C-alpha cells in the first residue's frame, strides 16, 4: 500500500558496498525507505534503480518523484572505492627540483612500529611520472629561484608520452606563496587543455609537503573517475524530471552541489559515512541530548563518531586505504570489530577476538557457507540473542548447531570452559574493544564518555550498545528505528558546508589585528560567494571561524573557535581552556602561535521535522519467550522477545528483553528499561553498573 507524500520532499541516496539505500522525507516529516542492490559496475544504474523502486512503491511515476524533490542528496563510496581498487587515473606529479620522492617517502610513517613486515600500499604515482621543475620558494614565502617554464614544458612532454590523465602540482612552501603553482597551473591548462589538474595550494593549502602532496594526489587520482560519473548522474536525473542540481555529501558532513565538488573531489572520500552526521543531529533533537557518541557496528567494522555540545568532532587527518588525506572531515574512528569478527585461542591459552573477520563469504560458521571459525555472530546465536532461521529478508540463514560446533572446537575446548562461557567471553572481549574505541575518541579529546548518550547504528550496534554503555557509565542508549539506513536518512538532514583554511604562521601576541581581520574577510568573501551561488541569502548563512593554535615547539595544533574582532586575550583564554581539558595542565604565559585560520561556511536548510506519533497505552505482548543468556550474574534464563512492529510509542519494556527489528536486534539488559519514543526510536535507561 502506497503512502501519500506531501510535496516538496527530500531524497537521500547512499550507495554502499552491498545495498543502495534511499530515504524520502516529505514536507510533513513522513519517511519512506527503499533498499536495492548496488550495481558496482555502474553505480548510476544503482541509483536510478533505487529511485525507480521507490517510485513504484509510492505509486508515483519517476518523473513525479523527482519533480517534487526539492533536494536530492547523494553519498557515494565511489571516491574511496576508486582508491581501494587501484582504479584511479594515471597521475603525473610536478614537484620542486630535488623533492620528487616526497610522496613515496611517506615521512617514513609506520602504522605499528613493532610490525615492520607489512609493505606500504603501492605509491599512486610511480617515480617515472614524478618530475621536477626548476624553482624554489623559501621559508618566508620569497621566490629564491624563479620558475623555469622550459623545465615544466619538458616534464609535460614526458607525462603526455606516458599517457597521464591527471597532473598534480605540489611545490615546496606553496602554502606560503602559491605563485609558482598558479603559474604551472596556467601553463598546463594552456598547453594541455584536456588533462585534469589538481593543485596543492587549492586542494589542501596546509604546511607540510607530504600531507599536501598525498592529499592532492588522491584528488587527481579520483577526479577523472568521479567527476564524469557525478555529471552523468546529474544529467540523467534532470532528464528524468529533477529540477535541482544533484547535491553531494562531503567528508565534512555538509553537502555541496555537483559543480562545486567537481573542483575538489577529494572532499568526497568519506561521502557515505560522513552523512551519518545528519542523522546524529536529527537524533540529537529526538533524544533530547546534544552529547552523543554513535557506534555503528556492521559485519566487519565499528565506526565511532562523537557529538559534543551539539558539535560533531572533526579531524583533518584521514587514512584512506593507507594513503594520507588531510581535509576537514568528520572524525570517524574505525576498528575492525563487527559481527563477522573471528575468535580463537592463542598458543599461550588466551582468548582473542579479531581483528580478522570472516567477511560475507564464507561468513560466520552459522551461515553454513563453509566458515569454520567462530565469529561474534556465532556467539550471539549460541547465547540465544539471535536464533536459527532466516534474517535480512531470507538473504541469510542462521544455523545455531554450526555456531555451537565452531565455538566448541575453537574456543571452549581449548580454554577448558563450557560453550556458554566461551560465547559470553567472546562477546565481552569484543565489547571491550568497542569500549576502548569509544574511550579513544572521547578521552583523547578530554571528554568523559559517562556524560554521553550512546547511539547504536548499523545492524549489530544495538546488540552491544547497552553493555558497552553500562561499562562506560554512559547516561543511556538510543537506538534509531532507521539504524539500517542511517546515512541515507542523515543526508536529508544536512546543511550545505564549505571549509576554508589559510595558513598564517605568526605569534598570537604580535599579530596585527588589521591584517588578521583582512585575512578572515577574504575567507568570508569566498564562503559567502560560494553559498550565494547556491542560492543562500545572507540570513541563511552561518560562518564559524576557528584558529589552529599551539604553543611554540609543539607540533600538534588545537582548533579554537573565535569571534571577531580579534581579541588575543580572549583567544588565549579559550586556548588555555581547551588545552587544560585535553591535557590537564597549561603553560601560563607560554608563547602561542597561530598556524591556520579556518572558516566553516554553512548554508542553512530548514531542519526536517519528523512526524511524531501519539502515545499508545497498554503493555506490548512478546512474540515469544526464549532461553537467552543475559549476563554473568543472571546466566541463561527465559527472556521475553518482542517484534519491533508490535511496539507502539509510549510503551516500554523491562529488561532482560530482546526486540527484533527488520534490520537490527536490540538487546536490553537486566534492569534496563526500553521505551518507544514518538518517532518509534528506542531509548534505553540503563540499570546501574554492577561493581
Amino acid at each position, binding site marked *: 500500500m502506497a503512502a501519500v507524500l506531501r510535496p516538496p520532499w527530500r531524497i537521500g541516496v547512499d550507495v554502499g558496498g552491498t545495498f543502495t539505500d534511499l530515504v524520502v522525507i516529505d514536507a510533513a516529516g513522513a519517511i519512506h525507505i527503499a533498499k536495492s542492490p548496488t550495481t558496482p559496475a555502474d553505480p548510476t544504474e544503482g541509483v536510478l534503480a533505487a529511485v525507480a523502486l521507490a517510485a513504484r512503491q509510492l505509486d508515483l511515476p519517476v518523473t513525479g518523484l523527482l519533480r517534487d524533490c526539492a533536494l536530492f542528496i547523494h553519498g557515494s563510496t565511489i571516491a574511496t572505492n576508486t582508491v581501494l581498487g587501484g582504479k584511479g587515473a594515471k597521475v603525473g606529479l610536478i614537484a620542486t627540483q630535488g623533492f620528487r620522492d616526497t610522496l613515496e617517502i611517506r615521512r*617514513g610513517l*609506520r602504522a605499528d612500529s613493532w610490525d615492520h613486515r607489512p609493505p606500504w600500499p603501492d605509491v599512486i604515482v*610511480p617515480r617515472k611520472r614524478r618530475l621536477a621543475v626548476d624553482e624554489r620558494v623559501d621559508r618566508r614565502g620569497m621566490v629564491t629561484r624563479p620558475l623555469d617554464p622550459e623545465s615544466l614544458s619538458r616534464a609535460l612532454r614526458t607525462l603526455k608520452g606516458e599517457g597521464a590523465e591527471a597532473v598534480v602540482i605540489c611545490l615546496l612552501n606553496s602554502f606560503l606563496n602559491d605563485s609558482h603553482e598558479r603559474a604551472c597551473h596556467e601553463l598546463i591548462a594552456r598547453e594541455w587543455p584536456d588533462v585534469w589538474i589538481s593543485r596543492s595550494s587549492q586542494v589542501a593549502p596546509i604546511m607540510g609537503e607530504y600531507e599536501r602532496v598525498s592529499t592532492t594526489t588522491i584528488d587527481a587520482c579520483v577526479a577523472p573517475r568521479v567527476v564524469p560519473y557525478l555529471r552523468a548522474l546529474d544529467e540523467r536525473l534532470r532528464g528524468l524530471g529533477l529540477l535541482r542540481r544533484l547535491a553531494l555529501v562531503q567528508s565534512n558532513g555538509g553537502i555541496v552541489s555537483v559543480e562545486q565538488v567537481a573542483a575538489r573531489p577529494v572532499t568526497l572520500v568519506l561521502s557515505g559515512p560522513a552523512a551519518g552526521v545528519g542523522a546524529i543531529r536529527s537524533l540529537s533533537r529526538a533524544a533530547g541530548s546534544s552529547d552523543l557518541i554513535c557506534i555503528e557496528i556492521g559485519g566487519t567494522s565499528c565506526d565511532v563518531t562523537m557529538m559534543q555540545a551539539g558539535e560533531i568532532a572533526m579531524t583533518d587527518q584521514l587514512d584512506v586505504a593507507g594513503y594520507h588525506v588531510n581535509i576537514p572531515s568528520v572524525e570517524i574512528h574505525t576498528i575492525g570489530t563487527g559481527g563477522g569478527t573471528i575468535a580463537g585461542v592463542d598458543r599461550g*591459552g588466551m*582468548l582473542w577476538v579479531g581483528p580478522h573477520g570472516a567477511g560475507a563469504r564464507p561468513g560466520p560458521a552459522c551461515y553454513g557457507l563453509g566458515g569454520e571459525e567462530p565469529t561474534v555472530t556465532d556467539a550471539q546465536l549460541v547465547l540465544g540473542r539471535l536464533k536459527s532461521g532466516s534474517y535480512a529478508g531470507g538473504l541469510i540463514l542462521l544455523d545455531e548447531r554450526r555456531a555451537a560446533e565452531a565455538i566448541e572446537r575453537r574456543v571452549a575446548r581449548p580454554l577448558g570452559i563450557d560453550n556458554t562461557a566461551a560465547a559470553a567471553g567472546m562477546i*565481552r572481549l569484543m565489547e571491550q574493544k568497542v569500549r576502548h574505541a569509544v574511550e579513544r575518541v572521547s578521552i583523547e579529546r578530554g571528554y568523559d564518555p559517562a556524560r554521553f548518550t550512546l547511539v547504536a547504528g548499523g545492524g549489530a550496534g544495538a546488540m552491544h550498545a547497552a553493555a558497552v554503555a553500562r561499562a562506560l557509565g554512559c547516561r543511556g542508549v538510543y537506538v534509531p528505528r532507521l539504524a539500517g539506513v542511517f546515512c541515507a536518512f542523515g543526508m536529508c538532514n544536512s546543511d550545505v558546508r564549505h571549509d576554508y583554511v589559510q595558513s598564517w604562521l605568526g605569534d598570537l601576541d604580535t599579530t596585527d589585528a588589521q591584517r588578521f581581520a583582512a585575512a578572515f574577510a577574504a575567507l568570508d568573501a569566498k564562503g559567502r560567494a560560494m553559498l550565494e551561488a547556491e542560492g543562500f541569502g545572507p540570513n541563511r548563512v552561518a560562518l564559524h571561524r576557528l584558529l589552529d593554535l599551539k604553543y611554540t615547539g609543539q607540533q600538534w595544533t588545537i582548533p579554537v573557535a573565535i569571534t571577531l574582532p580579534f581579541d588575543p586575550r580572549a583567544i588565549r583564554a579559550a586556548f588555555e581552556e581547551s588545552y587544560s581539558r585535553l*591535557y590537564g595542565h597549561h603553560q601560563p604565559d607560554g608563547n602561542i602561535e597561530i598556524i591556520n585560520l579556518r572558516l566553516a561556511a554553512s548554508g542553512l536548510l530548514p531542519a526536517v521535522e519528523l512526524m511524531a506519533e501519539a502515545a499508545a497505552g497498554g503493555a506490548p505482548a512478546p512474540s515469544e519467550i526464549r532461553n537467552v543468556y543475559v549476563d554473568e550474574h543472571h546466566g541463561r534464563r527465559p527472556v521475553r522477545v518482542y517484534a519491533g512492529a508490535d511496539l507502539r510509542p509510549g510503551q516500554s519494556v523491562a529488561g532482560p528483553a530482546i526486540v527484533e527489528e527488520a534490520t537490527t536486534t536490540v538487546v536490553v539488559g537486566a534492569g534496563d528499561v526500553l521505551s518507544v519514543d514518538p518517532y518509534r526510536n528506542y531509548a534505553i535507561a540503563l540499570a546501574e553498573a554492577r*561493581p
Partner: protein
Amino acid sequence: MIDDPVLLSLVQKQIDHVARQMGWVMTRTARSPIFSQSHDFSCFIGDARGNVISQADGLPIHTGGGGFALRALLAAFGNAMADGDVYLLNDPYTAGNNHLPDWTLVRPVFVDGLLSALVCNRAHQSDIGGGAAGTYNAAATEIFHEGIRLPPLRLIEKGEVRADLWQLLLLNTRCPDLLDGDLRAMLGSTEIGATRLSALIRELGTTEGQAFFDAILGHAERVMRAEIGRMPAGTYRGEDASDTDCFETKDVRVRLRLDVADGGMVFDFTGSDPQTRGFKNSSLANTHSAVYVAVGAFFDAGLPRNEGTYRPIRIVAPEGTVVNARYPAAMTMNTVYPAGEIIHACWKALAQLDRDRACAGWGKVAYCITSGADSRGRTYVMYHWHGSSGGGAVAGRDGFNTIGQLTTLGGMSLPNVEVFEQLYPITVKRQEFRCDAAGPGRFRGGTGVDYEVDVAASAEYSFRGEGLYTPSGFGVVGGGTGRSGAMTLTPRDQTPIDVPQYGVRSLPPLHIKVSSPGGGGWGNPHERDPALVLRDVEDGVVSVEAARQYYAVVLTPDGSAVDLTATQTLRRSLSQPRPPGP
C-alpha cells in the same frame, strides 16, 4: 592462580589500553619536536615487583629492558614509596637505565594503601647538559661528559613537586623551556595511567591484581616458548662490527653465539670486543632491549609484549665489553650503536633458523646533528633526519627507501621539510632516492637518499657517520648488501672540508651533502620478478647495467621493456648466484 581465561584476556588488553592512553596524552602535550613529531618516548607499566607487564606504547628499543630501572628504583626506595610520589632516574650504572638522555619517570600506583603497580614514561630529553648540545657528545670518553646523572630521585613527594629539585634539573639543561614542558607532559601521562590502572586493580581486588599480572607474564612466556619450540635446536653464530671507536678507524665487534634448545634461547656475547674509548658502549639494560628488538622483529608481531615474553631468553653479556661497559665509560650513543650491531648480529644468527623470517640489515646512520641559537636566542638541536638510511628487506617486501633508524624499526617518523625550514635556519635542497645503492635481492633493500641542505648560520655539529665507509645493510638468504654512505661539507664559497666520522665541531655556514646507506636484500636477486626490475630501472633507482649484472635482467635496447628471452637465457646460464653486493 587465575582460572578465568576470559577475564585474564580482558585484563591484559585493558592494561595495554592504559599504556596507549598514556602515549596519546604524551604525544599531544609534549613540547619538543623529538616527542611530538618523532615519538621518541615510550610508556610502559610494571607490576609491584618491577616486572614490565605492558609495553604497548612507544619504541621497541626503549621498553624491553625497562624492568632494570624499575627494579633499581624498588631497591632504592622500596617501602619508602608513598601514594602521590613520582620518581625520576636516568643513570645507566646505578639506576638500571639505558642511557642518560632517556629520563624515566615512574609513578607508583597505590590501591588500598598497597603498592600495586608502577606506571612509567621514558622519554629522550632535548638537552641534559654535558659536552655538546642535544645530548649526543661524540667527543665523550667518560659518562661525566654526557650530562647530568640522576639516581632514583623522588621528584614529587605526596603530590608536591620538590621545587628545589625541579630547579636543579632546569639548571642542568640548555633548553629549560623544553625540559619544563616535557617533564609536565610526562607527569600528565603517568597521572592518567595511574588513574586508569588503579581503577582496574580496584575492580579486580588488590590481592588478585598481582595474580593477574603473574598470569599475564606466564601467558607471554608460554607463547614465546611455543614459538621458540618450532625453531630447530642448535648453535648459531652472528657477528656485526663498527669500523670506528669514535676516535680512530678500528673494528669493534659484537660477537654472538646463539643456542636454541628446549623452548629457550641463550644469546651469549662472550668474545665481543672490549668497551671503547668513545660513547658507543652499551649498558646491560640497553643490550637486553636490543636483543628483544631483534627477537620481536624476527618472530610474530602479534607476540605479547611484556617481560614474560623474554623469560625464555637468557642473555650473557660479559662485563667490560662493548655490550656491558664498566663505569665510567661514556655510552649515550648506545640506543643507536652498538644497539644496531647487536640487532644485526642477532638477525644474522636468527636468519639461520628460518629463512622466511630472516631480516636483512638496515643501512647505518650517516647524517649529523646541528645545534645553535635560534632567532630568539634559544638553543635548538636539529637532527638531519631527511638523510635517513634505507631499511632492509624481508620476504614479501622491499626495504623502505628511507626510514627512521633500525633500533626503532621505523617507529620514529621523518619530519616535513617545510616544518624544519620553519624551525631551523636551513634550506633543504634535495631529498631523493639513490641509484644502485640498494642491496639486490628477490626483495631488494631500501635505496637510501641523496640529501642536501644549506645551513645559514654558524653552528655546532655532532657527527655520527657510522654508515659512511663500511657497507652496513647486509643481505640475507642470498640477497646482496646495500652500498655505504657518503658525506661532504662545504663552507659557503669555499672548498670542502674534512668530514669527521664522529666528533664535535664548530663550523661556519655550510652546504651539507649526505648519501645515506642502502639496505640489504632478501633472497636471490635472480629470482626477482623482471617486471619489478624494469620498474626500478624506469624509476631510476636501478641502472640498466645493474639490472643485468645483479638481477640478470636484460632490457630491450630502448629500455622500455624486459627482453624475456634474453633474461631467461641469462638467468639459466648463471646456475650459481653471483657473489652479492654492488
